[in-house]
Each structure stands twice: as C-alpha cells, then as structure tokens.
C-alpha cells in the first residue's frame, strides 16, 4: 500500500516536472523563433531595397535624356517627318487587306 502510494506520488511529481520543463522550453523556443523571424524580416526588407534600387537603375537607363545621350554617341539623330516612310494604310486610304487579316483585326482597325 505504501509503495503504491509512493509510486503514485512519484508519477505525479514526474508529470508536473515534465509540464514545467515543457513550459520553460516553449519560452526559450519562442524567443529563439522571434530572433529568427526578425532576422528574416530584415533580410526581406534588404532584398526589397535592393530590388527598389535595381528598378531605379532601369528607370534612369530608360529616361529620355539617357537614351538620347546614348543615341548621340552612336551618331543617331532625329529624323524629319518627311524622312519617315509610313507602312500600312495612310490617312484617307481604304486600307484593303486580305480577308484573314481583316478577320483578326479589332474593331478599331488595329491588328491583334
């Protein structure tokens, strides 16, 4: 009887100890995970900033001033309107085209 009572007490003690250990472990894990999350958040922001700067570089490279400077270096110049040949139907022309092409044209006359 006494032994049974002692064993039960030991089991209860073990159970309570296990719960206390679990509680303590949870707290430590939460802190460790918190560090991890914050580290990943900083990394994500860092990558976003890098991305922003790459997009900035693209925008600057595609700016009209930048493109003109590059074009001038290659010896290019603005064409006058009379040096440009228009392909396709001109203003006032009836614009006759093959029936298959007309089938694929949108209502506003532009091809798909």
């Amino acid at each position: 009887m006494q032994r049974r009572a002692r064993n039960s007490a030991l089991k209860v003690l073990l159970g309570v100890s296990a719960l206390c250990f679990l509680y303590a472990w949870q707290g430590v894990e939460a802190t460790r995970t918190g560090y991890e999350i914050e580290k990943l958040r900083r990394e994500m922001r860092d990558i976003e900033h890098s991305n922003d700067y790459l997009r900035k570089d693209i925008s600057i490279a595609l700016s009209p001033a930048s493109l003109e400077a590059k074009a001038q270096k290659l010896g290019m110049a603005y064409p006058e309107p009379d040096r440009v040949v228009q392909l396709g139907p001109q203003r006032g022309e009836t614009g006759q085209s093959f029936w298959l092409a007309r089938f694929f044209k949108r209502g506003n006359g532009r091809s798909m």
Partner: protein
Amino acid sequence: MSVPTLRQRIKFCAIICSVAPAIVFLRLFYLQTIKHENLSRTASKSFDRLVSETGPRGRIFDAQGDLLAESIVTWDCGLMKKELAHPSRDLDALASTLKVPRKTLGDRYARAKNYMPVKKGLDRAEYEKLKELNLRGVTLDARQSRYYPSGSLARGLLGVAGEKGGLSGLELLYDKVLAGTVSKREVVRDAAGRIIYGDTLKDGGRPMDLHLTLDKRIQFFAQESVKKYTESTRARQGIVIVQDPRNGNILAMASWPENLNQVVPVEWVYEPGSTFKAITFAAALDTEKTSPSETFFCENGKWQFAPRVTIGDHEPDGTLTLSQVLERSSNIGTAKLGIQLGLQDFYRYAKAFGFGTRTGLGFYGESSGIMRPASKYKPVDLAVGSYGHGLAATPIQVVNAYSAIANGGLLMEPRLVARVADPSRNAAREEKPTVIRRAAGEKAIKTLKRMLRAVVTRGTGKTADVAGYSIAGKTGTSKTIDEYGKYVSGKNVASFAGFFPLDDPLYTILVIIDQPRAFNYGSETAAPAFREIASRIITATGLPPDVDAGGRPNN
C-alpha cells in the same frame, strides 16, 4: 542500528535537504503568481517599444505608365564619438568610402560632444560599402527619400517633396493623396537591444499613386526645344505647353530656366498679343458681325484712332480681306473688326474662351489673368484689346482657348491627372474630361480654322509649317509688362499658338519666348520652336501626312 532508526534518519535528512528547494520554490511561486502582474508591467516598460515607421510616398506615372517620381530608402550616416574604437583610422575609412573631405570630418569630430552627423542620403552602394567596414559606433538610419528617375523631366510641374511632405507643384497639390502612411509595430527587445518579437498594430498600407496625362516623350521634346530656343535667343525665359484638344489633357508643360518653386505656365501672366486675334475673329464670325467676304482698309499701316492714340501695323497694308487681316496680323484691321463687334460681345467671348478665370487645375499660385471689368473699358481699350493688348493671360489660358478652336468650339477643363490609383492598379478615382462650355459655334470655328491655316501657308506663321501636315496657328508679339502692370520698353514677348492636323486636331501647342534679345517677333523665335516640337511629335507618334506637297488634303 535498527531499521526503524535508519528510516527515521533518512527521513530527517530528506526533510533537511528539502528545506532549501522549498524556500526557492515558495519564492518562485510568490514572484510568478502573486507579484506576476507588477513585475510584468515593470519588464514591459524596459523591453516593450512602440515603433512608428513612415512608409514611402505614392508614385507618379506618366500617361504610358512610365515612372516619373518614386520614394526609395536612403540612409543617414552618423557616428557616436565615444564608441569609436580607433577614431583616426575610422575617420579615414569613412572619408574615403563616403567621399567626404577628411578635414571636414576631422573638424566636425573635434567640435562634437558625442553624436556627429557624417553624411545624409546615402544610396545602396554607399550603405553596403559602409556595412562591410563594420565600424563600431557608426549609425545608419534609414529614411524615405524622393527620386525622379528621368532627372529634370517635368520637374517644374512635379515640384519638390521634403521630409514633411510636398513643397511645390503636384507634390504639394496632391500631398494628401501621396503622403506616406504611418505603420506602428509593438516590439520586445532583449538586453542587447535586438528585437525578440514584433507585432504590427497598424499597417499603414501603400498610399495612392498618381497617373498623369503627361506624355514623357512629348514632355522631353518640349523641354529640349524650350531650352534651346530660350538660350539661342538669349531670352529671359521660355514656356511650352502641349495639350490634347479633344479632352483637355496636358501632354507637356515645360519652362526654362527650370523653376522648382513655381509652376510658371499657370502662374505667370503676359499680354497674349496677336494670338488673341483668333478670339476676336471667332466672336465676330459667330455673332455674324462679319463674314469671310468682308474687307477692311488698313490705313496703310498707321491709323490715328484718337487724338493721342495711333494704332500701327508692322507692314503698311491697304485693303485686306478678313482672312488677310489675320494672315498679315494687321492690328488696324483687327481693331476695326473689334469695334464692329462691340464691347459686350467682345467681352462675352473673351470670357467664354476662359480669359479672366482660373482654369481649375488647382495650383495654389494659379493666376486668373488680368481682364478689367467691362464697365471700365473705353473705346480705345476695345480697339487694342481686340489684338490682345491691355489684358493679360496665363499661358494655360491661351493654349486652352486654342484647343477650344481646334476641337470645334468646346472649352475643355485642362487635365493633368488621369486617375488616382491604388498600388494594385485598380483605379480608385478616374478624372473624366469635362466640357466647361461651348465657346463658339461650329460653323464660325470651321471658318476661323481655315484662316488660321492660311496664316501658316501664306502669312506670318510660315516658319511653323511642317511639310505634309496641316498646321494652323497664329504668331504673337507683345510688350512685356512688369509686376506693376506697366509696359517695359524695348522688351517683347514672342509667341506662337497652333494645332494640327487641321480637320481632326490631336495636338495644340503654345510656345512663348519672353524677352528674346536676338530676334523679336513670334515668327522668328516661337514659330520655329513650334515647328521643331510638332516635327518630333509627328515622328514619335507615327502620325501620317494629311496634305500633299501643294497643301491639298490627301483624301
């Protein structure tokens, strides 16, 4: 020793040994349960922090969706003097990495108590170089900075944004829409200051983006041309506005020299001069107080209107048809037409075309121009007012009036913003084109447009013509007025207002060259600039020719 005695001793030892853990356990119990709330509150005060972050400002796009303005993270570098491990060596490294003069840093360091700013607005490359140095005591604070990827493109219109918001131009006008939102996070830090846990209390979200009606290409052409012609004529300033007459959309608005504090095309006023003649003609044709077959005797270039008032033309002309009065820009012919029109109708049509009233763009400094009340007009005021003297207008009023002529008589509200959108590109608010009023009838406008075409083919506007395209417009040369409304002698304002193609206009362009020193007339300065901008637009948009070599329509 008997067994009962041994057991008692073991029990006694167990009791002695459990006293210390029991005391610890009781103390823990007391701290964790009874004192738990108090201690948690004290700990929170030390470790919990509310962190506010201002998000980026909204972006600004042109009509094609190309970026004109955006916010990006930059860093402000500072250092804590007391934490520097090797001050001299660290300052050398900072100076060479950030390209700051070593002497400047040294002087600042000597004067500083502890914190010392080093350099503001570091970009990513500088930030990464600095991080690699791994210097103790160097701080890097992130903040949002505004950048304009196209450099000076449309900067006068976009304006400037500071740390606290927009300061001028569209940045100021749409500050509430573009302002970065504040997000709040509750963070728990450890003893070393590192964040253990963070919870977003308020997510600021992204602010709205502005989609303008500006066309980046046309804006570039306008800026290049206005700079070129202003500098080549050694003028005080130049202004160009390009508008779509069908809907009032502003496609380009440029001024030179660049002014970031003022939107010059809506704030500056000038005498429109001969470009205003088109309004007098529209009024006279629409009220049928004249017809294309009527002729006017232009007094051989000098007309004694009143005892001390002489109206003069730059060419001594005799009798001219109505169209020739406009083609040759005769002040005398136009003054006679204006008198024939009468003050009431003159004033009514000037107002109908938008003069004397703000256009509704909304800029804080926008002027309504200067038009005295009709009751203060004397006969000489009507005569000179007919050819654009004695009244003042803003460039936006003039281009808007010419757009009304171009589109058949409808005065449109000028538009700069096409829509205000949220970042996912779902339109939050579309700004629809608005017709303010019908300024003149279609029949009168059609006749006027033909006359304006003749100005370019046969008259003073020949230098604005582009072969193969039906350009119509009017030159203007007027006297400069100072801030007190007085004429400044020897100083002119040269301008050209026009549109094309004639029958279905897509572009209205106004060019103003203020106080050119080389060449004075609109035909010599502003008209060639118009031609250059029109040519660039035609080439860039692939606009097909609509007239043949003889000036006849292609169809």
